[in-house]
């Protein structure tokens, strides 16, 4: 489904006299449809960089990222035009960051509903019902549904973040330490939700700092050095 060949990313800092920082180099892996690839490696090895290159938040320097998209067929995410990337982000590729970065002054429920409305074309009522169910499973009490996530605790924010990212059932999900700020119980719930999504055919690539956790969710592990 997705294969990465010799991916490299270097940051050129013009304002530091053109200093070059290599964030990752020579990364290659392949993920088959419906499987879960874990990325492991020491901190600073460039795991997040790889995910961001896949999502194109970073512009890959070198290498190819072949992805069999449902929308366009096989494409190279490293060079695909911006508009097509946006299209894929809208329709099939989801990304969970380490921290919630959503629009301010939007209620928790709306945060989760928004991609469902836009991407799945659900009616508002249906989206509200699904989003509410998802948040409740993630133990966000209904009294917080109308509150702004900015006022939530770190763990609560992260659970809203996850609900938003998986609620619309992306075809390919990129996970950057989704459970890092969660207690064990919440983490287990999240893993359960991810397992359900995989059962529906989603492909995932994820970073977990907890090696044990990684071993339980991942079919395969790629070590980034």
């Amino acid at each position, binding site marked *: 489904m997705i294969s990465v060949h010799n991916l490299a990313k270097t940051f050129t800092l013009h304002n530091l006299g053109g200093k070059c920082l290599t964030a990752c180099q020579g990364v290659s892996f392949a993920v088959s449809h419906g499987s879960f690839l874990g990325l492991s490696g020491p901190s600073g090895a460039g795991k997040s960089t790889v995910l*961001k290159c896949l999502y194109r938040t970073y512009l890959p320097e070198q290498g190819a990222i072949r992805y069999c998209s449902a929308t366009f067929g096989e494409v190279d995410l490293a060079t695909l035009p*911006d508009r097509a990337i946006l299209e894929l982000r809208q329709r099939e590729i989801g990304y969970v960051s380490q921290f919630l970065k959503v629009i301010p002054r939007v209620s928790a429920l709306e945060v989760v509903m928004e991609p469902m409305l836009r991407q799945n074309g659900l009616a508002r009522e249906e989206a509200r019902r699904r989003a509410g169910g998802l948040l409740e499973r993630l133990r966000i009490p209904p009294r917080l549904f109308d509150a702004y996530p900015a006022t939530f605790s770190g763990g609560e924010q992260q659970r809203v973040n996850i609900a938003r990212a998986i609620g619309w059932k992306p075809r390919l999900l990129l996970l950057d330490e989704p459970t890092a700020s969660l207690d064990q119980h919440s983490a287990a719930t999240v893993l359960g939700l991810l397992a359900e999504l995989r059962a529906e055919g989603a492909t995932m690539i994820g970073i977990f700092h907890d090696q044990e956790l990684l071993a339980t969710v991942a079919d395969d592990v790629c070590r980034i050095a």
Partner: protein
Amino acid sequence: MEPLIRVRGLGKQFGPGCPRCLALTGPEADTNLCPACGTVVACHGIHFDLYPGEALGVVGESGSGKSTLVRLLHFEWPASCGTMEIHRSALAGLGLDDAGGEGGAYSGNLLACNDFRKRQLRHLLMGIVYQNPHLGLRMGISAGGNIAERLLGAGWRNIARMRARAAELLDKTEVPVSRMDEPPANFSGGMQQRVQIAKALSNNPLLLFLDEVTTGLDLSVQARVLDLIRNLSHEFKLALLVVSHDLGVINLLCQRTMVMKAGRVVESGLTDQILQDPQHRYSQLLVASQL
């Protein structure tokens, strides 16, 4: 999906111009003033597509040419060079089918239309919100009248329907409808800005230009105006061109962004990429100074 508008090679110069203008200005020279002849190259070689329902950001310091760009596209200033074409489907049913071009999916160069046609295009397809409400509103005429002006321009001739529409828009933009017949001169800055937005949206435009709309407003008012724009742009399926020097505004509203410097686009890409992995020296400086 095909772009709503295609802009190619757009440029504007103020001054006599000389053969060296373009070589001696731009981001490398760090100026838009030609040292040889004194011409200001306000912008040059602008090239982009804007898709239906998309928000495209234009970011850069003052004098980078971003407001000039809006004024060219809104037909306020004549362009020195370049073309702007619109998808023919946007013109269907508006009686503007003869906007030039040789068949095909796109119109001819709209920038070459006569003033009469440009005015029609503006009334039927475009809306604009300026940083300074005095540019977008007639301060001595009622808020409702300001909205009606746009509708009248688009051919509306029914007072009751215009008033109903104005009330609906003022309600959407959170201006008390009871104040519809008051002139905006009586309103606060944030409220004037919301009346401007209501006016800009009144003719159901396909294309909305936002020129530094939140600059100069209190933070809390800024937030409300931005929320409003975000919600309305979804509701109205608008294509937005958002000009701002504030990366926060761009980040909130736009999926794609162009970075301008000294009249040229130095970088364009996905907004999150521009913010997290800026490529050009100037983009890096801009991001580093703001975040």
